[in-house]
């Protein structure tokens, strides 16, 4: 597949270049870089979610399940068996992929709200298991990754900037996967499923297989984000890692505010929402309990009301990539010049 340099791609590359340089211009151990890293990680999570939620419009409210599977798998393998989180991350992705495939069997017949509720329930089940199965997971107190100084092979670094760059690389990877899927055959099929499932089937699209493939990829990438999150924050517990509001809904929200099913949407959404949330917290949490969440919620509602299709709706349409015009084949049938193509345009 040849990549043409469109305005969108140029902007995306500029964004990654600028983001890569950020640690040189802010305090490398400071709060700003941590927030930036968190925003990029949420962009990567939301982009992973966007593969299923955006391209196929299967709105999952349970992606925290895969996020948590990733975090627990890499962390437990490291803490109990001493296996490097780099390998644990791969194991977590595989496990999340299997979980997504198993979850697909009963849930793919469900549409819209019912699918969302089923996925939500799955994440809740995972949270309850993580809380109750203390001998394996450590239970409600959660898991702590011990600070061991700089051990790159064990995914441990002193500087925040190291984690920041890894997260930026992860975001690039997820965006690349999203871009390849969206522009490939599976992208057309997923969009067909999103827009009319019955018509897609009749037009020869194996809708189940397409959704399954997208779900497995989406879950695996989300799990990688979970492993990286665990290494970055050094601590997590069942209620935070499997959180509905903090993880599942936020992943969906970022993509929706940014622009569902678009490559730029999750990045713009995360860069808008995560700093906004942090700022609201910093300025308002001392004023009154819950005030910052209230303000954040009001801004979210306003954003959705002002532009339901997300910030990417302001993207100039002529800049969007279109399937290129097919080469004109020689006229086949000796017919009268058809009037329909001209009529009524």
């Amino acid at each position, binding site marked *: 597949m040849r990549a043409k340099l469109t305005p969108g791609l140029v902007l995306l590359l500029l964004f990654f270049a600028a983001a890569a340089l950020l640690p040189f211009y802010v305090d490398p151990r400071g709060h700003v870089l941590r927030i930036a890293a968190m925003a990029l990680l949420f962009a990567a999570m939301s982009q992973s979610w966007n593969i299923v939620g955006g391209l196929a419009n299967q709105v999952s409210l349970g992606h925290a399940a895969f996020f948590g599977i990733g975090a627990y798998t890499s962390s437990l393998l490291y803490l109990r068996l001493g296996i490097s989180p780099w390998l644990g991350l791969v194991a977590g992705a595989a496990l999340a992929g299997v979980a997504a495939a198993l979850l697909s069997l009963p849930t793919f017949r469900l549409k819209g709200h019912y699918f969302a509720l089923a996925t939500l329930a799955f994440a809740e089940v995972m949270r309850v298991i993580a809380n109750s199965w203390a001998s394996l997971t450590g239970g409600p107190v959660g898991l702590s990754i011990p600070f061991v100084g700089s051990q790159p092979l064990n995914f441990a670094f002193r500087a925040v900037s190291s984690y920041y760059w890894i997260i930026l690389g992860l975001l690039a990877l997820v965006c690349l996967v999203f871009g390849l899927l969206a522009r490939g055959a599976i992208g057309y099929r997923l969009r067909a499923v999103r827009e009319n499932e019955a018509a897609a089937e009749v*037009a020869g699209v194996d809708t189940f297989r397409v959704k399954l493939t997208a779900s497995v990829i989406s879950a695996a990438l989300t799990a990688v984000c979970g492993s990286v999150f665990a290494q970055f924050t050094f601590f997590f517990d069942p209620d935070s890692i499997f959180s509905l509001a903090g993880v599942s809904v936020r992943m969906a929200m970022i993509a929706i505010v940014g622009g569902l099913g678009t490559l730029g949407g999750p990045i713009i959404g995360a860069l808008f929402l995560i700093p906004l949330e942090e700022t609201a917290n910093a300025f308002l949490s001392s004023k009154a309990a819950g005030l910052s969440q209230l303000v954040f919620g009001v801004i979210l509602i306003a954003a959705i009301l002002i532009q339901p299709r997300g910030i990417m709706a302001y993207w100039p349409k002529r800049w969007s990539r279109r399937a290129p015009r097919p080469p004109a084949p020689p006229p086949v*049938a000796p017919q009268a010049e058809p009037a329909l193509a001209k009529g009524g345009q």
Partner: protein
Amino acid sequence: MNAQTPVLEAQAIAVTFGGLKAVDGISFTLTAGEIVGLIGPNGAGKTTLFNSLVGLQRLTSGQVLLGGERVSGLKPHRVAGKGMTKTFQNAALFPDMSVLENVLTAALLRHDLASARMKAGAVLHRLGLGAIAQTDVADLTFPQKALVEMARALATEPKVLLLDEVMAALTPSEMDEVMAVIRSLRDEGLTFLVVEHHMRAIMALCDRLLVVNFGRLIAQGTPAEVANDPVVIEAYLGQGAAHGATTDAATGGTNAAGGAHA
């Protein structure tokens, strides 16, 4: 495959919704290269029959054979893969895609992305839609949508194509164009089963007609035979309209009003 081989065989197929028998034991065969019309009053079970043939609707009983191979019970994409697909009555296109992308998606059934694009372009040219390949389907007129719907179905390279009212809302000259395309595709061996309310189109286009009412096959034969069958006149056209419409239909006269209320 010689001309007498049944390419499609419906054996006593039935579809029941609760107590309602939408399709009640219908059997028929289509021979390769035939254009067969399926007619009947609204609610007779035509669309349900189409859906059950392509696998969108599960059969309560009976079976469907395509080229001698059983396709009933398969999912629609498998049936499409075996060579039978349909168009949707109200043009169920993928609204956020261009015309080309709609057709390309169906061409992916038998092609990789690059050659699917070529295939889609060729099908669009064949139907005279080359000029609107890049148009968003949301911006199309209704007749254009119906043709894109047909192009998308053709892109799956079917042996049997079920057309559900693709000619509704077409002007007479547009209808002639579409019929010319259907005939030329038939000459290449494609087999058609056509639902259409336009009497003129049905009479002019079809080699044979199947008449359904209340989920049952009540008559079949050449257009002329069917048009003069008293059972058909009673069921399909109603007592009041019977006389005028019969002569009109039998002579292939223009019945513009017939299309307007379809």
